[in-house]
């Protein structure tokens, strides 16, 4: 239908009885906000690894901006990476006693306790260990 209207409008213009055909409207740039790169932050806090009643509980005195989705511990770098939904990642320190390294290698899930304003918040998170 639009094609027919344009044809008729062009025809009338050429006959001298119509208005000039409309310019094609310029394509406006998308209003969708630009995608930002995931943030990577180093936080100078130590993560506590505590085993209680068969649960591995990680504790940090820190409030995450996002929701933790998985945690990775790197034994060589002595760091713990908290990847959050959306891709942001925070790294913190953790120096683990040698006798517990093998136990951590076998750990696949942890309870994470972190700050939530004045309260504490608990997440049940997949865990990966790298020796």
């Amino acid at each position: 239908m639009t094609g027919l209207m344009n044809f008729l409008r062009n025809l009338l213009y050429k006959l001298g009885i119509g208005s000039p055909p409309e310019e094609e409207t310029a394509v406006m740039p998308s209003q969708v906000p630009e995608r930002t790169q995931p943030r990577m932050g180093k936080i100078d806090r130590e993560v506590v690894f505590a085993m209680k009643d068969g649960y591995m509980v990680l504790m940090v005195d820190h409030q995450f901006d996002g929701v933790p989705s998985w945690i990775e511990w790197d034994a060589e770098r002595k760091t713990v990476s908290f990847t959050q939904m959306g891709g942001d990642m925070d790294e913190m320190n953790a120096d683990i006693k040698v006798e517990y390294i093998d136990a951590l290698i076998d750990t696949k899930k942890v309870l994470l306790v972190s700050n939530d304003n004045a309260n504490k918040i608990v997440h049940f998170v997949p865990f990966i260990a790298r020796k």
Partner: protein
Amino acid sequence: MVVVYNTNTPDMDTVNALAAHAIAQADKAGITQQSEPDSEATHIGSFEFEGGSLFAKAPEASAAPSHKFDGPKL
């Protein structure tokens, strides 16, 4: 009983309390030791906590002595 894996020793009262709270929240959410986490929905609960910090803060450097050393008396 809580076993801490870190080489640095945290405040054990705080660690004990936080671990107990975390496990209580897991129980409340129906999580057992056989449960598998869902990385898309990891939040299981919250609780109030008025305990202390995990690690004692490093002592601040002491102020410089007010007494001025005048050098040896001749």
